[in-house]
């Protein structure tokens, strides 16, 4: 992925700083709790939510099972409607295609619609290296770009900042990128939105090239769909002469009718609205309305590797709503940056180690960044069983085994750093397979119980840094059971 994330420390270390930052904790708690209650209300309005969720799952699974067929059909439909389709096997190739297309227009700047795919491939940095300036136009992306920050949420990349911090970024940084923020800018959200409106207006009006992603691509018709709120998407999709959309191959759906499911489940799951303010749908190019040239870059970048995994492939159903982030107790405390990826939270913890592999320290630690509480699965509008995939990826980390990387079959070796754990697991299995040994261990623990400390030194501090050990009882249950004949001979 992008250079920004190279050398990220493992999740537990990265999360530690966030846990100890009271402002960040407050910002995340406030934002996630606000949206949780609203999502529950928006979802509760639809009596057939479970059926919509199930249909969404089925549509996505069916599409993934026949992905080659639908990608070819999509290519035909887009081409017939006047668009040009490009294929990119990885991030580098996608970036080269976009840079070339921009250069062919003779322009040196582009306006961008918020897009996870272009963040994933590090497009802005790649364009910068080619002398092309990319302006983010989504409010939160603008905040992140101005603040030279990293996104921490799929939907609201600046969720880690509160209104006062956003005002400070606008005041100090806007001037260097264009129209400065008003002198007397306060932290009122309406004023902040107004400052962004004025700052970006000049960029929209002069832009000749736009780059977007898409929420959905319809194979049958060649239609692309962008779901947004602010109108920056519409600006980018309609004012410039050239539009380049970079879209992951898993975003295809077979038919026009399929949108009736996702246009009900996505807005309610993401911003907790019945419908988001703006949805744009376009099919190729339209004479005298909107861009004259439309390019679609279909991106693999690890998606086919993910597709090859029988358990992990369900992650490709994701429609990037971010409901799982908003409900996740780990995300709420650790924040998005700790996940070391543009995809944070529960979905990030199963997506990043599949798209990027489990080779790096951060990616090998992400499958463990969950208490497996299952809240993510419960809210997921396409029923991705995130806990199941997390456990599956833990297995890949500790046991290794067959996987696909860059389209090639490989056999992964067990990750280092799990030797002690592996030995403990083996020892436990040995004991549990022999009730005699288990009983001997239990009795030894009971007999020596007065000597047990309530806290442990060394690695044991992971437990007893904050918690006392439980007191060991005078006898294990099985001894009581045998001694009293299951309580029939008196309970004591």
């Amino acid at each position: 992925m992008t250079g920004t994330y190279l050398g990220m420390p493992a999740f537990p270390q990265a999360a530690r700083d966030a846990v100890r930052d009271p402002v960040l904790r407050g910002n995340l708690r406030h934002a996630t709790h606000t949206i949780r209650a609203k999502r529950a209300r928006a979802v509760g309005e639809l009596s057939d939510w479970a059926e919509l969720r199930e249909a969404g799952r089925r549509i996505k699974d069916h599409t993934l099972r026949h992905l080659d067929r639908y990608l070819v059909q999509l290519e035909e439909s887009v081409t017939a409607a006047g668009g040009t389709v490009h294929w990119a096997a990885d991030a580098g190739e996608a970036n080269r295609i976009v840079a070339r297309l921009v250069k062919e227009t003779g322009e040196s700047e582009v306006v961008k619609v918020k897009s996870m795919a272009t963040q994933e491939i590090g497009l802005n940095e790649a364009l910068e290296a080619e002398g092309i300036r990319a302006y983010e136009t989504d409010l939160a992306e603008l905040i992140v770009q101005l603040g030279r920050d990293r996104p921490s949420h799929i939907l609201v990349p600046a969720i880690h900042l509160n209104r006062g911090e956003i005002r400070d970024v606008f005041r100090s940084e806007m001037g260097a990128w264009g129209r400065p923020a008003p002198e007397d800018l306060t932290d009122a959200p309406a004023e902040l939105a107004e400052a962004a409106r004025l700052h970006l207006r000049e960029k929209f009006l002069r832009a000749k090239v736009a780059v977007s992603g898409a929420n959905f691509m319809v194979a049958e018709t060649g239609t692309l769909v962008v779901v947004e709120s602010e109108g920056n998407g519409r600006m980018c999709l309609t004012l410039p002469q050239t539009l380049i959309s970079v879209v992951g191959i898993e975003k295809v759906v077979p038919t026009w009718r399929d949108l009736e499911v996702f246009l009900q489940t996505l807005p309610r799951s993401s911003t907790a609205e019945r419908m988001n303010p703006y949805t744009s749908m376009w099919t190729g190019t339209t004479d005298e309305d909107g861009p004259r040239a439309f390019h679609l870059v279909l991106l693999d970048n690890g998606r086919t590797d993910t597709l090859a995994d029988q358990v992990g492939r369900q992650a490709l159903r994701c429609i990037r709503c971010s409901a799982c982030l908003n409900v996740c107790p780990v995300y709420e405390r650790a924040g998005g940056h700790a996940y070391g990826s543009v995809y944070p939270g529960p979905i990030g913890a199963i997506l990043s180690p599949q798209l990027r592999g489990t080779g790096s320290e951060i990616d090998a630690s992400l499958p463990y960044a969950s208490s497996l509480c299952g809240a993510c699965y419960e809210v997921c509008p396409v029923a991705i069983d995130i806990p199941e995939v997390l456990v599956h990826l833990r297995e890949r980390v500790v046991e290794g085994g067959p996987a696909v990387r860059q389209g090639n079959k490989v056999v992964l070796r067990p990750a280092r750093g799990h030797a002690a754990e592996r030995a403990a697991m083996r020892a436990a299995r040995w004991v549990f397979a022999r009730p005699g040994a288990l009983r001997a261990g239990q009795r030894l623990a009971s007999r020596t119980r007065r000597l047990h400390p309530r806290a442990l030194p060394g690695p044991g501090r992971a437990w007893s840094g904050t918690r006392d050990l439980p007191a060991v009882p005078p006898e294990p249950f099985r001894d009581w059971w045998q001694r009293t004949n299951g309580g029939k001979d008196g309970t004591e």
Partner: protein
Amino acid sequence: MSSRDRVLGRVRRALADVTPDDRPYEEAVRRDYLREHGGPTARRTVELLAENLADYRAIVHRSGASELPSLIARLLAARDAGPVVVPSGLDEGWLAAADVTRIPDRAESTPADLDRAGSVVTACAVAIAETGTIVLDGSPDQGRRRISLVPDHHICVVRVPDQVVSSVPQALERLDPARPLTWISGPSATSDIELDRVEGVHGPRTLEVILLG
């Protein structure tokens, strides 16, 4: 090998374990969800549209055909926001009473030209009651996509009950995917500051919907 072949080859190898489902698509994917929620009368559907539009801060007006020109004139005069963009196929009578400078929707206009307009008046293709959404499809009475975007004030006329459907599935049935479509649910908004909704960013900050019937 082209990247197209490489990606498609990877997809096919990744799916080696999967048995293809050769049933027709509509059979392969069962849909047990509702076509609409509630199935109310036409009158109640229009009420729901009005409620949901207002809930997301659109300003809703009702009008008969005869009062429409004076209502539009009044709304534009109250804004006093400068020239008004007019789609080529808009019913001429709608603006008959308005004393405003008109900017026609022309291909050669630049975005900067449009930025000088204060308002735009359009019709719509369909409106969705359950979500409080109006959909524009670029027909002559709605114009190019950008004209309902750049001006800060959008007046949209919905013919009720003919143009109103209950639900998203019903709306998609009525729409032509070959046309450029814009779904609008209230004025532009953002949830980017503390995940709380604030109205008014890049699109029109005022959306007025006239239910004509």
